């Protein structure tokens, strides 16, 4: 009940409610000190005479406006038309291109490098084939850390 009344206090103060509801709130306020307290607090700030005064613009505003109009009138009309049309033309495509570039970059960065792995595997296979051709895998002892040891190891793994 109290919440319902308190929510409508500004409407009540402005007389924006139907007569019946105005009467209901008035009757409630007469008996409820809490809601009356809220009413008084809001009334103190919501009266029209308590609303703030007008703010005045700078006295130079007219001079600035005149200067702008003068500049506008001295510039050939086609320049303004061009500016306006360029703004309209460029704004959307530039945004679209930026989004597109972001998508492409995302796809590029997110894709695993399959082609590089494939090329590397192919190179290893070629080397293994070459070592078989040269008979490098026939040696019993291959000095560790040499090209031969790498090829033999790879060749054994492949097979």
């Amino acid at each position, binding site marked *: 009940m109290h919440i319902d009344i308190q929510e409508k206090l*500004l*409407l009540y103060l402005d007389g924006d409610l139907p007569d019946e509801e105005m009467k209901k709130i008035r009757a409630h306020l007469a008996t409820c000190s809490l809601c009356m307290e*809220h009413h008084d607090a*809001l009334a103190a700030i919501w009266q*029209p005479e308590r*609303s703030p005064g007008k703010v005045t613009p700078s006295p130079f*505003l007219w001079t*600035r*406006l005149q200067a702008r109009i003068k500049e506008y009138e001295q510039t050939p009309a086609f320049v303004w038309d061009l500016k306006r049309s360029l703004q309209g033309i460029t704004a959307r495509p530039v945004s679209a291109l930026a989004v597109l570039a972001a998508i492409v970059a995302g796809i590029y960065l997110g894709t695993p490098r399959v082609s590089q792995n494939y090329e590397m595997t192919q190179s290893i296979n070629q080397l293994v084939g070459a070592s078989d051709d040269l008979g490098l895998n026939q040696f019993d002892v291959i000095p560790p850390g040499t090209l031969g040891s790498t090829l033999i190891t790879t060749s054994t793994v492949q097979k």
Partner: protein
Amino acid sequence: MFVNEHDLIRELQAGNQTAFKELFDSFSPQVFNVAYRMLQNKQDAEDVTQEVFFQAYNSLKHFRAESQISTWLYRIAVNRSLNHRRKSKLTRWLSLDFGESEDDTDDSGFIGPTEDGPDVVIERKDTERIVQEAINSLPDQQRIAILLHRYEGLPYEEISKIMCVTVASVESRLHRAKVTLAKKLLPYKDEL
């Protein structure tokens, strides 16, 4: 001095500079105030006011006088202020400034001439700041309605023309705005 709006519009459309100056002198305070209430920044409000009259200057020949000239100027002011606010938000977002608004709210003009003492003036400023913050937190459409109604004292019908909605819609927005404001202001009861 033009006796009625019809004469003023005719002279404006004929390119009379004196008429344009009169239009500016008559309506720039209202336009500026609407922009200031919406943007909370004097410099931004002046920029918007300049934009409004520049646009009016360029569009006057197309003005069909279907509404009052003040309604037309208010409508441009509201739209320009909304655009300005969106651009400022975007600029702040792009500059990764997620902190408080950069608005250097100058509330020196908030309270009109008064004979009250400094304590009373400070108290009223505090109170108005709380109210203004509550209004700023409303959705745009409710905020515009309440600003035009409370600060400009415009009738529902004119607000409906400015916002291009029905009078019933303005009533509904104001109703919702006032309920929300009452909820937001009550916790500050002791400060008010």
